[in-house]
């Protein structure tokens, strides 16, 4: 490492690292979609799905399917809530109660999707989350989501 390099970032706490592994690669659906972990801090998470031919929802335009965006939004909301809950009381599972998605526009052809979710309120049993998904520019989202999740109790390690 040369003197010009930025100082190494502090590794995330062990719990966050476990959470990231569990959420990005830890479920068959996230593996099948190729969901990539980007970041997690308390109450906030970010993940992405790179474009792939078998995830196309419109063969005429090669645009990634809305269903992929739905899964990514749901999954990233789960990461945000788990990270909010993890810091105070161990690891929790989450179950989606409802998920509202507004679609601003289709993604651009052959582009992947990135998502960030923010758990802005957590009670003992429920987490409330907002999320945004975009392809190129975060200021020009393709979809936004609002969701409520139930905490389902600590998971087995």
């Amino acid at each position: 490492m040369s003197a010009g390099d930025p100082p190494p970032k502090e590794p995330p706490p062990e719990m966050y690292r476990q959470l990231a592994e569990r959420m990005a690669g830890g479920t068959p659906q996230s593996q099948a979609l190729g969901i990539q972990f980007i970041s997690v801090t308390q109450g906030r998470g970010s993940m992405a799905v790179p474009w792939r031919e078998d995830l196309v929802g419109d063969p005429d335009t090669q645009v990634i399917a809305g269903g992929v965006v739905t899964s990514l939004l749901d999954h990233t909301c789960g990461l945000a809530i788990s990270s909010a809950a993890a810091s105070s009381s161990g690891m929790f599972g989450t179950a989606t109660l409802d998920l509202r998605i507004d679609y601003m526009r289709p993604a651009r052809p052959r582009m992947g999707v990135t998502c960030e979710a923010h758990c802005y309120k957590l009670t003992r049993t429920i987490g409330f989350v907002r999320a945004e998904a975009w392809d190129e520019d975060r200021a020009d989202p393709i979809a936004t989501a609002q969701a409520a999740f139930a905490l389902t109790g600590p998971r087995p390690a």
Partner: protein
Amino acid sequence: MSAADQLQGFLERTPYVRFLGFKAELDGDALVGVLPFSEHLVGNTFIPALHGGVIGAFLEMTALAQLFIVQPPGPRPKTIDVTIEYLKPGRAQTSYARAEVRKIGRRVANVHVDAWQDDPKQPFAALRGHFLLSTADR
């Protein structure tokens, strides 16, 4: 070509439909969306249960397929917004869904969808959504 044939043709050549394993069974204008269970659809390996996003995608696809049948020909409808309600976990078995087109306006349709596994009267998830029918930009 009938609307049903057009729909089946579209489903067959759409990669993500094959990725999910979604099928549309038609009896006249009545459509049932079918999602056979597959390991890669699992979002929770402890139960195991279908991924919430997969359930949402399945419901939305059923709504769009039903609109395709009710509203041919013309451009494919686009989703404006959906609210997905999760009533209980989607188990590791085949899921079914039926859409009810509550209103079709000139540009916008309102659709409700219920999904079930064993008993249509006991849905495990539901969707309500608005879909854009016209070609005009939003």
